[in-house]
């Protein structure tokens, strides 16, 4: 138990006498809260999960790590204090940042902190009253949120004190508390909504989609917002001129701050204050009163035996659309692969990558980042005209080439992630079945990734290019396509030495040089393509060579033997 947790326990246990009067067993309360915090401290948080973990040593100060991270995020919010001239505008932006980031961090943590299904089996059979247990949960959530919020607002606190003095800080702190309440309500509302429209079994999958969307939006926001707003306009910006601002809760908080620090009792500011005080409390009350009872019941169903009954009912429902999916997959797999191990692997990787939450969490955000990148690129080159693209001069070339080669990054990402799984032990069957050429498994997997993540993209690109530019783009398009195959195959040849979904994320020996090479190959080929873009004969010859080369490399992958791969069952 570290000093931070000890401090928090001490603080929340201060009103022990009151708890006791409420009929709560203080001793059990303290023990549950302490243990929960100890467990949190050893659990990898969201930030840890999205990174590839290199260290093998157990996590023991997760709390400290996530606190530092949230202070770091909080310091980004300070940008808002350099916008416009008035505090209402600035604080509106600040609180927008705050609510958005807090919500997106909490939404992930809530699934692991709130819905720890083991609580039911471990704690419920013990002689602990419901009241004590619920209260312990509440305190635990309170501490958990404080650990996020306090470091997050710390940078702003320092700035406020430095610029405006300590007295303007107090209303700010109060309003931060209210904003936090509102955020909790938002998350709760979202959870309740998801639980309404879907089954508890799919709940976690949907929450993880939300996390992916949040991560992408977050990234896009940081990349795009500064570019969108030009500097002069930013300094002149005044949110009060915009009537729609009233719909945004951050605006109320900003207005309330203005009122509490300047004591101008104008009507809009008074409304702001009333809104920002009453709406958070009202919404929390609504959650507790109307939603919480059914909410808890549904949450417990996530682990409960309820799922057993629904499993038997489900296959019937899906029976209609299964054949369609399967036939598409079997067609596409028989087109790309040889019968046997390769096809098996192609289909297995295709299915696993659509169904494994783990895989999607790692790969889909990078898809999103890619889109954001592309958008930024177009925005930076706002001189591009359609004519440029049409006659393939200057910038038109660059755009086309980056469109084709950028997707490499995504494919590499998918390839790297493909070998990992939470259920890596399930890969035993690769070792117990008589596979003569393990290379077939890997080639099937690589083809699956190409077919799944690259083909749709290149099809769209090709159609768009053909419509805009016309058939004369065809050689370049083909060259790009073959190169992409070559790049993917080469990288797979160098770096994929394990069976798909057979490695545990924790035991990765990440290889920096491998990673650098994987980035270097597409970049240099893209450069080459750019240089020979308009030399048709050279292009044709290289196109042919590239096609042959990728075929050869794929063949080499196929023929890899047990000795070429570092394959051993991970137990």
């Amino acid at each position, binding site marked *: 138990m570290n000093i931070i947790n000890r401090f928090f326990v001490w603080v929340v246990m201060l009103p022990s006498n009151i708890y006791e009067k409420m009929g709560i067993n203080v*001793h*059990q309360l303290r*023990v*549950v809260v302490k*243990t929960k915090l*100890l*467990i949190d401290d*050893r*659990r990898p948080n969201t930030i840890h999960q999205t990174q590839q973990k290199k260290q093998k040593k*157990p996590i023991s100060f997760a709390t400290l790590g996530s606190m530092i991270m949230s202070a770091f995020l909080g310091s980004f919010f300070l940008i808002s204090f350099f916008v416009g001239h008035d505090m209402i505008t600035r604080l509106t932006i600040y609180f927008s940042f705050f609510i958005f980031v807090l919500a997106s961090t909490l939404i992930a943590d809530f699934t692991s902190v709130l819905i720890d299904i*083991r609580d*039911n*089996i*471990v*704690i*419920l*059979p*013990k*002689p*602990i*009253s419901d009241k004590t247990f619920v209260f312990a949960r509440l305190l635990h959530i309170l501490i958990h949120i404080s650990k996020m919020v306090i470091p997050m607002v710390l940078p702003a606190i320092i700035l406020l004190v430095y610029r405006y003095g300590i007295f303007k800080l107090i209303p700010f702190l109060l309003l931060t508390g209210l904003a936090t309440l509102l955020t909790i309500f938002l998350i709760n509302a979202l959870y309740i909504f998801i639980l309404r429209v879907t089954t508890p079994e799919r709940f976690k999958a949907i929450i993880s989609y939300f996390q992916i969307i949040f991560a992408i939006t977050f990234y896009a926001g940081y990349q795009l917002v500064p570019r969108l707003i030009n500097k002069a306009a930013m300094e002149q910006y005044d949110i009060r001129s915009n009537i729609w601002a009233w719909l945004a809760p951050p605006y109320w908080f900003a207005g309330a701050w203005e009122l509490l620090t300047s004591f101008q009792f104008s009507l809009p500011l008074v409304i702001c204050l009333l809104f920002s005080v009453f709406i958070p409390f009202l919404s929390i009350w609504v959650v507790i009163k109307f939603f919480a009872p059914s909410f808890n019941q549904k949450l417990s169903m996530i682990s409960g*035996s*309820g799922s*057993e*009954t629904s499993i038997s009912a489900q296959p019937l429902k899906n029976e209609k659309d299964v054949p369609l999916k399967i036939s598409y997959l079997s067609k596409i797999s028989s087109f790309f692969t040889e019968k046997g191990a390769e096809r098996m692997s192609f289909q297995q990787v295709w299915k696993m990558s659509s169904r494994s939450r783990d895989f999607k969490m790692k790969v889909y955000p990078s898809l999103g980042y890619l889109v954001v990148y592309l958008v930024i690129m177009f925005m930076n080159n706002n001189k591009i005209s359609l004519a440029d693209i049409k006659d393939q001069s200057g910038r038109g070339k660059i755009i086309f080439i980056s469109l084709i080669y950028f997707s490499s990054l995504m494919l590499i990402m998918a390839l790297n992630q493909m070998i990992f799984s939470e259920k890596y032990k399930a890969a035993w069957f690769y070792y117990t079945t008589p596979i003569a050429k393990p290379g077939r498994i890997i080639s099937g997997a690589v083809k699956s990734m190409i077919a799944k993540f690259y083909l749709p993209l290149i099809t769209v690109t090709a159609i768009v290019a053909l419509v805009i530019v016309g058939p004369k783009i065809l050689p370049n398009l083909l060259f790009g396509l073959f190169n992409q195959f070559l790049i993917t195959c080469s990288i797979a040849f160098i770096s994929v030495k394990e069976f798909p979904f057979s490695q545990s994320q924790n035991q990765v020996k990440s290889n920096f040089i491998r990673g650098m090479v994987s980035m270097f190959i597409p970049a240099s080929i893209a450069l080459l393509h750019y240089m020979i873009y308009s030399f048709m004969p050279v292009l044709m010859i290289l196109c042919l060579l590239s096609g042959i080369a990728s075929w050869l490399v794929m063949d080499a992958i196929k023929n890899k033997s047990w000795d070429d791969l570092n394959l051993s069952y991970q137990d």
Partner: protein
Amino acid sequence: MEPIIKLKNVVKNYGDKKVLKGINLTIFPGQVIGYIGPNGAGKSTTVKILCGLISDYEGEVWVDGIDLKQDPLSVKRKIGYVPELAELYDVLTPSEFLGFMAELYEIPNEIAEERIRKMLAAFGLDGNMNQRMDTFSKGMRQKVLIVSGLLHNPDIIILDEPLSGLDANSVIIVKDLISKLAKDGKTIFYCSHMMDVVEKVSDRIVLINEGMVIADGSFEELQSQQGNQSLEKIFAHMTAKESLSDAADQMMHAFEN
């Protein structure tokens, strides 16, 4: 003698599905009850009701003269539960986890510490007391769970498939322990699919199927009703819809193409 556990017409539904259709049981102290039944018969549900995991059941449950619905806390103090799956907070060490359990039962610290140490040592885990359980094997976790169920010296011990993952030596220890605990006047509620073990350890066997008790008595009584055969055979005879050897034959026929 007063019964220690009494279930009166206990019914539990999940939505439209009836899991328990009126279970009636009267159990006296010092008995080892072998609670058996096929998958989905309602065994786990009964156990979960008894130890307070499920509270929205119909009917009455009395433990040592206390109504479970009226005073669940007093009931829980008398029961020790060893869950089926190795569910525990595996980032904790055994001594932390068991310490936590002991505090929930409000056992004084000095007593708890000594008990934990002695009990773990009996299972040969004294060297692993301060290691995190995420590296533990299934058997080691099971041992920790067994200790956590016995820690507060309960009158009733509910064991749900307690031998899973244990090595042969530990199985002997646990079986021996069960009979010694029963001799000490404790009531053991033993749920398992391993018929040979149930046959040997239980004084009384309760067989449930589709949410109802279909046989209840000592092994000898069951034998006298169902013919002189092993519990496995009796079980199959009473619960299987089709002949099981037909199923095996069908499996063998599958090779014929």
